């Protein structure tokens, strides 16, 4: 198929940036979206233009590196996939596809479609861990039985790949699905309860400091999340936060 691409080009963080049109031809429906971008870049290199910079790495939907906003949706039109798993069969011959970076105050553009997500790192550093040393001198893994349901729910929250699609999809650029998932994983496990109060307070404080907005209960984040992280995690974080506030 032949396609017209409208792609955000921005030389660096200080450049104003603009949409630029490109044409690609003979795109196979079996290609992944990023392979289509590879074809475009090869074409640009051969004609002496600068290729489009975009983040990607594992190309199997787990590293969370790829981050495009395609036709107004984070990771494009398919559900429960990252951009690297989006396939061209979702599009048809003659389509025009708009490709932008994830946009949020807390995700400044580095170049073209590459954004800076280190705000997520700082939120995790504020409390996204259990304070246990890695000496191996811990108790036996089976010493604390964990109900299967709790373990499974913690696992569901832990599948978050930290891509930032939730932020990009939210009209308030809220990171509450991301933070809620991490808070939930630890809140559901006995190992994480010890520090639950400080954890939720510190992580939420850092989230606010980074410039992420508040939740409006719209639910776009859940729909666009490539891993289907549930809104329940935001509710759980709010409960945890309330409990922590009451404790003072």
């Amino acid at each position: 198929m032949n396609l017209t691409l409208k792609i955000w080009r921005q030389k660096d963080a200080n450049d104003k940036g603009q949409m630029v049109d490109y044409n690609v031809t003979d795109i196979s429906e079996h290609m992944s979206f990023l392979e289509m971008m590879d074809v475009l870049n090869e074409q640009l290199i051969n004609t002496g233009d600068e290729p489009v910079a975009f983040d990607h790495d594992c190309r199997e939907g787990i590293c969370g590196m790829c981050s495009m906003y395609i036709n107004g949706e984070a990771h494009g039109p398919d559900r429960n996939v990252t951009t690297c798993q989006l396939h061209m069969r979702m599009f048809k011959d003659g389509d025009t596809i708009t490709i932008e970076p994830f946009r949020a105050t807390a995700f400044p553009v580095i170049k073209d479609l590459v954004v800076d997500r280190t705000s997520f790192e700082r939120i995790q550093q504020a409390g996204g861990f259990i304070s246990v040393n890695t000496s191996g001198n811990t108790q036996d893994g089976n010493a604390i039985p964990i109900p299967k349901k709790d373990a499974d729910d913690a696992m569901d929250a832990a599948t978050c790949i930290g891509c930032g699609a939730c932020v990009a999809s939210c009209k308030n650029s809220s990171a509450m699905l991301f933070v809620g998932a991490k808070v939930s994983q630890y809140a559901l496990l006995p190992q994480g309860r010890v520090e639950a109060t400080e954890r939720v307070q510190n992580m939420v404080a850092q989230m606010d400091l980074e410039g992420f907005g508040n939740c409006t209960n719209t639910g776009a984040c859940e729909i666009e999340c490539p891993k289907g992280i549930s809104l329940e995690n935001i509710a759980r974080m709010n409960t945890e936060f309330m409990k922590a506030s009451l404790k003072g």
Partner: protein
Amino acid sequence: MALDSKTPKGPLKDKWTSYKNNIDLVNPANKRNIDVIVVGTGLAGGSAAATLAELGYNVKAFAYQDSPRRAHSIAAQGGINAAKNYQGDGDSSYRLFYDTVKGGDYRSREANVHRLAEVSANIIDQCVAQGVPFARDYGGMLDNRSFGGVLVSRTFYAKGQTGQQLLLGAYSAMNRQIARGKIEMFNRHEMLDVVKVDGKARGIIARNLITGEIERHSAHAVVIATGGYGNVYFLSTNAMGSNATAAWKIHKKGAHFANPCYTQIHPTCIPRSGDYQSKLTLMSESLRNDGRIWVPKSMDDVMAIREGRKSPTELTENERDYYLERRYPAFGNLVPRDVASRAAKERCDAGYGVNKTGEAVYLDFKSAIDRYGKEQAKLKGINNPSEDKTYELGQAIVEAKYGNLFQMYNKIVDEDPYKTPMMIYPATHYTMGGVWVDYNLMTTVDGLYCIGEANFSDHGANRLGASALMQGLADGYFVLPYTIGDYLSKDIRTGKIPTDTKEFDEAEKEVTERINFFVNNNGSKSVDYFHKKLGKIMWEKVGMARNEKGLKEAMAEIKAVREDFWKEVKVPGTADEMNPELEKAGRVADFLELGELFAKDALNRNESCGGHFREESVELDGLQKGEAKRDDVNYAYVAAWEYKGEPADAVLHKEQLEFNDIELKQRSYK
């Protein structure tokens, strides 16, 4: 110079304990004055960085991604082995040790493997304490699954995302230290050379991938944890950015590179669909527990299927060749990875491949769905269930076990694997070879360590499933923190290592000159053009089956591609900005050298062992006719190569392998 593995004396089972009791330690006040650089933040590097920081060292960690959490350890699906014996099925450290040495076809170092097995149980405790949500059974206890090639159930897992969860555990431990200021994290940075002062590793040169700035970082020791070199094949299950640059640079500065030809080609990957393909996707080996692998018996059926005139489901049992069950009745579809991969290649080379490229075989779940369906019907008390009902019940079980993999296949191939059999083909997955290290995990350069997939030591010629995660975390959490302390205890009076010295000047100059060459070369061909050419040579001549003629050709061809690369490579953009093409150019330049050494090593090793199959070395008769033939008399050694300029001129050093606690046997799966 003879290689000294520095393996401690004494009985195998006591070596690690007595080693720990006798090494020198660094007192806590002195640790504050010692810096350690860790390059790579996957399971090995991430766990090492966190642990070293906890101990009190000042750690600088480097990752090319925008976060340590994105390292490719994250893609491991199946699980992590540990000799916990929770199932009471007879597991022990010794059994795990034995299975690993045997699975590696007796080409690994006994003492290292035993240590790995000893610390394995502790890894699980550690990860549970960190909040890794391992699967639990209904009693709340940790669940296990079994994995290829072993007789016990010792694999711990977190859905199909074990690697991700373990990495997030190590990453959370890192975050705790980053918050304390004990780890300084350099995201989007790539190490481009190591700096040696008076023969010791004392720092690195790195490029900031956002600004293009070249930076100098000094330390008292340098740890390389940058993973394997599977992308030398262009197409592999590795991440796009996975590269051998750090490992290759240290090789050029004096670290020997061991057994490069030991590569694991994984049997259950999604086949290639066209020339545009950028990477291959692996599906967990656990699928072979229930899937049956086959191709049609008759060439007419093959053609009819390829041309779309026939569907594979129309073929009767008699028209199918379940070639693994036919060739290996004892193990059937559960033969080890190397055997399954070669058998698929054999059928496809004979013309029986079932897709347009001729490189695919079927993995069929029909029998499993029937079997589970009947079992469920009985459990639910349904007498004489209809075919549809049986199918529905069976499908639910298969979905519960492999649902995420089936969904992934469906998204990529656009076919429903519950209805038509999956198509699979082998792909490069893991590299057992790597930088040579001694028992301390130190390379042949003082103060330079190498851990995880990047080193060579534990898996011999073939790695067992669910052992990569185990090794990465063992090295990082429990082994390196001891061994590096012994070395650093001699460094407490050294003081901060300055970076304004001639050694740093020279290393930086070399790095800058190479970068400037790339951006100014204005050649006619893209980096990918050369990478694909290299990958094709590697796959065809240094792939699943190798012979003398092909390997000699490969060495000459790779050299020619390399020469053309340095003339004709075209890198757009500039050096002082984010420039992914420039990053790739440096990595491919290194692969073009590594590939030739790889072929040279394969040529030298005129035996078949593990993932390395030489067509000249097969059993000529008897039950094992046509199977791989190992040669313990002539090749029971580690081939460690010393850099001498051109890869073809590399000098071989042998570390003879001694097996005192295990009897060498032929692997038989018949």
